[in-house]
Structure formats: structure tokens, C-alpha cells
């Protein structure tokens, strides 16, 4: 393999002085080999992270990532870039805290600037009951080694004076803050993992669509693709919104529905919103990108969709939420909106597990929380693929938990995917 240079301040200086002629592609474009030890289906954030950790932590060199389009073209480039570990339940919180710790060391690990910015995530509360629920959640976070802080209205006002504190219907009483939460440049996450995996020998094969699984005597021995059969000792699927479609080819029906989630960005503005703010009484959350655009979103459209675009009622709902929470937002112009397909699970929590088919593993059901989970999802999936045992932080994410009644339902809304 041709050695690709590392990135550093010195390198930028040197390239700058020599006409920037030394930069090379960050990853190769290899032809698929006839066989690999591990084939990862899906070149999104989770698939690339899985390949990276398989190679870097578990010493597995014979790994391929198959992507039907181009890497980073799905949800890893469509989310609103937020990272946090503010979950309540014991099945979830250790996993997300593990993920946040991986984010904190990600750039040094990858030698790639992913612009991890721990600017704080502020969940606003608007009633005494909500404050008590947030206090409970904050305590659960602290018990699992995460950070949490409960602010009252005066403390919050000092940090975010622009919020509409005295709203008649939903006055802002304060916020639960996780200061280690924040945002990450999402495309750089895909590219950084791709480059890191490639440098460790992983073949990233784009424009390679998996059309089926070859299963003999209950064991998956490889995948059929539009570029021919590729044999594999183990196959892992991390295909987010396409989970049901892909796993159907292996004869499986999943506890998942695909729904569309929209996101929006305004024109670039001077710095105005210091952290990530979520509205506790409406469907709205917002942060400001490093380019200055206000990045915001709300709830899913509520009906099954594979369209990667939503409809106007949710646009209206999100903008109403924004105007209620911070009326100043009405001065900004919205310039772009888009949609991504969420693999909404039956309890709002993900699945990282074996399937009933030997040698076939599944990673999905991330609902709209997949981005923050990217490092831990990749790490835990790599652990499962390499060792055939679940990672210690992901033991609850079993595929059969619905049959066993072991749901991880943060919201308590039951088997109704569009309510999670």
C-alpha cells in the first residue's frame, strides 16, 4: 500500500510553501477482492467506524466496506451534527458516554480534524415536573460517569439572554446542561474514519450495491453485489434507513419502520447561539455551525417514508417552535432543507447483535440518534464481529429484546416508532 502522509500543522506550512502539490487522495479506490474476513455493508458513519475499529483495535486487516453510492452520502452527511450522552436508562447511558469519550479523543486517534466542539447541550425545561424529570436524568448521567448540570432561569439567562423566557404558555424555567456535549463536523467524521480505515488496509468500495446474501445451511458465506459475489467469513450490516430492505434479502423482518426526518439551515450569521439548545415544550432544537448558519430541526414527519424529503406541515411546525423559543430567529432566512431516512425502532433504542443467520450481524434501529453514537456503534459492532460477544456497553441492544419484553424505551411511548 502506498504510504499516505499524515496531517499536521507543519505539513500545512510545507504544502503552502510548495504550491500544495503534495496532497494525495485520502483513501484508495480499490477493486473488490473475491473474499474478505469481514464485509461491512454500508459506507456511512457507522460502517466506516466499524471497519476502522476492526482494523485498529482488533487487528483485523481483511475488511471491506461496501457502499451502494458514495461514502458519507447518507445520514452521516444529513444529520444536525450533535453529540451528547444525556440518556436516562442503564441500557443506554453507558454506551452513549462511551461514545462521547471516543469523540473526545477522536481527532488524535484519526489524525483528522473533525472539528469536535464541546460547546454544551442545553435541554430547556418549562414546568416543575419537567425540571424534576431532568434532575433525575442528570443524576442518572452523573451516576454513569457523565457530566450534568441543572441551571435555573437566572443562570440560563446569563448564558442565553436571547431566549423567550417569559412566554405565557411555556415559560423557560431553566435547563439541564451537558457541557461536554456539542457538535462535530459530520462529513469529516465519515472522511476521517474512511482515511483511518484505508490506511490500515481496509478496502472501501463505493458504487457497490449489495443485492443479496449467499446463505448455505443457515450460514452467510458472502454477499451478492452489482459487482459480483464477494465471499466473507462474517458480514455486518449497518445501513440505517435501508435496514428493512437489506435484511429482507436475508429473510428477516425487523422491529423497524423507516421515517423521514427533516433538517434546516439558515444563511450564515455572526456568532449568536453559543451551544445546542433543545426546546422542552415543542419540536425544535438549534445550534450554529462554524460557518455561521443556524442548523435546526424538529420531529419526524410521522409516516413511513424512503423519500429523503419531507413535507411542509413539519417545516411550519419547526419554524413555529423556533419563533416561540427565540423570536430573533424570524430575522434569519432559511436557505436549505433536506431529509434523511431514520430506522425507527419499536422502543426508540438501537440494535447491535447477531442475527438468526450464522455469520450475519446487524447494526441498526438508531432512530434519529445515530450520529452521536457513531464511534461507539462502530467500536461495539467491531467488538461483536471480532469476538462474537457483545461489548460491555452494548449488552442491552439485543435483537430479541422485544420478544423477551426487555425494551429500552426512554420515552415510555410503547411500540409506536413514530412517537420515539
Amino acid at each position, binding site marked *: 500500500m502506498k504510504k499516505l502522509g499524515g496531517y499536521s500543522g507543519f505539513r500545512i506550512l510545507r504544502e503552502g510553501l510548495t504550491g500544495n502539490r503534495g496532497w494525495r487522495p485520502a483513501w484508495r479506490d480499490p477493486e473488490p477482492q473475491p473474499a474478505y474476513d469481514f464485509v461491512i455493508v454500508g459506507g456511512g458513519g457507522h460502517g466506516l467506524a466499524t471497519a476502522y475499529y476492526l482494523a485498529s483495535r482488533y487487528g483485523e486487516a481483511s475488511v471491506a466496506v461496501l457502499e451502494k453510492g458514495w461514502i458519507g452520502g447518507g445520514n452521516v452527511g444529513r444529520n444536525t451534527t450533535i453529540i451528547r450522552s444525556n440518556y436516562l436508562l442503564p441500557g443506554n447511558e453507558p454506551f452513549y458516554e462511551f461514545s462521547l469519550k471516543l469523540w473526545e479523543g477522536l481527532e488524535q486517534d484519526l489524525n483528522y480534524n473533525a472539528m469536535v466542539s464541546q460547546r454544551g447541550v442545553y435541554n430547556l425545561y418549562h414546568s416543575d415536573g419537567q425540571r424534576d424529570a431532568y434532575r433525575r436524568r442528570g443524576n442518572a448521567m452523573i451516576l454513569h460517569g457523565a457530566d450534568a448540570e441543572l441551571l435555573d432561569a437566572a443562570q440560563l439567562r446569563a448564558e442565553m439572554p436571547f431566549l423567550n423566557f417569559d412566554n405565557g404558555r411555556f415559560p423557560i424555567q431553566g435547563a439541564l446542561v451537558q457541557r461536554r456535549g456539542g457538535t462535530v463536523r459530520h462529513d469529516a467524521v465519515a472522511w476521517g474514519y474512511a482515511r483511518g480505515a484505508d490506511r490500515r488496509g481496509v478496502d472501501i468500495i463505493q458504487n457497490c450495491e449489495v443485492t443479496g446474501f449467499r446463505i448455505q445451511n443457515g450460514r452467510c458465506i458472502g454477499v451478492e453485489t452489482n459487482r459480483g459475489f464477494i465471499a466473507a467469513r462474517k458480514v455486518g450490516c449497518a445501513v440505517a434507513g*435501508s435496514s*428493512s*430492505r437489506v435484511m429482507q434479502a436475508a429473510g428477516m*423482518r*425487523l*422491529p*423497524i*419502520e*423507516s421515517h423521514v426526518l427533516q433538517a434546516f439551515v439558515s444563511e450564515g450569521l455572526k456568532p449568536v447561539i453559543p451551544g445546542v439548545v433543545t426546546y422542552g415544550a415543542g419540536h425544535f432544537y438549534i445550534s450554529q455551525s462554524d460557518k455561521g448558519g443556524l442548523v435546526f430541526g424538529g420531529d419526524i414527519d*410521522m*409516516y*413511513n*417514508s*424512503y*423519500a429523503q424529503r419531507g*413535507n411542509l*406541515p413539519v417545516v411550519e411546525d419547526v419554524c413555529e417552535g423556533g419563533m416561540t423559543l427565540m423570536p430573533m430567529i424570524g430575522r434569519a432566512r432559511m436557505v436549505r432543507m433536506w431529509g434523511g431516512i431514520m430506522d425507527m425502532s*419499536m422502543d426508540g433504542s438501537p440494535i447491535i447483535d447477531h442475527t438468526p443467520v450464522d455469520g450475519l450481524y446487524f447494526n441498526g434501529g438508531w432512530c434519529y440518534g445515530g450520529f452521536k453514537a457513531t464511534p461507539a456503534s462502530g467500536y461495539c459492532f467491531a467488538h461483536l464481529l471480532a469476538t462474537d460477544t457483545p461489548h460491555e456497553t452494548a449488552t442491552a441492544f439485543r435483537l430479541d429484546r*422485544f*420478544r423477551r419484553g426487555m425494551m429500552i424505551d426512554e420515552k415510555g411511548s410503547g*411500540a*409506536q*416508532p*413514530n412517537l420515539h
Partner: protein
Amino acid sequence: MIIEHPLLGPRDSQEFTCLGDASLLQRPDAFAGDAADTFFDYQYLRDNPAGTHRELWYHEMGDRSWLVLTRDTRTHEILAVELASDVVTSGGRS
């Protein structure tokens, strides 16, 4: 999306809430021997197709009827709208 309500004509989809796959109309027999399996399938597993999908919508802000929409999940095009009560009775149930 505009939903052609069989009784009320074209209505904005904002007046409705979507429950999900119309297979929820076919509640399994709770007294059958395999009820644990059939109810697990019924409650938790979905076909989740990319393409034509039959699904239950509730006219919450309207006449409170339940409808069965046949809709393409790739384009959001609505292909057919029926009253859920008609679907159930034509399936042989009362």
C-alpha cells in the same frame, strides 16, 4: 399531502395522524396456542416496504374516522383511500 377522504373529499394531511401499517387491523387470536408468537409478530415486526404501503390514518381534526391509505413510501403519492371499517368488513369481520 392531500388525502382524498371517501366521505369528505380532499383534506390536508395535517388533519390526520398516522398510526402505521394496516396489518394492525388483523389482530391475532389471543386464545390460539401460538398466540405469544403471533402477537410478537403483530406488535413488533413490520414489512416496512420501500414502495406501496397500506397504512392506517386517523382523521383526528376531522370526522374521527379511520382510513386505510395505499401510499408509495418512495414518492409519498397516495394511490387509494378507503374507510378502515369497509376494509375490515370486506375482510369478513363485523
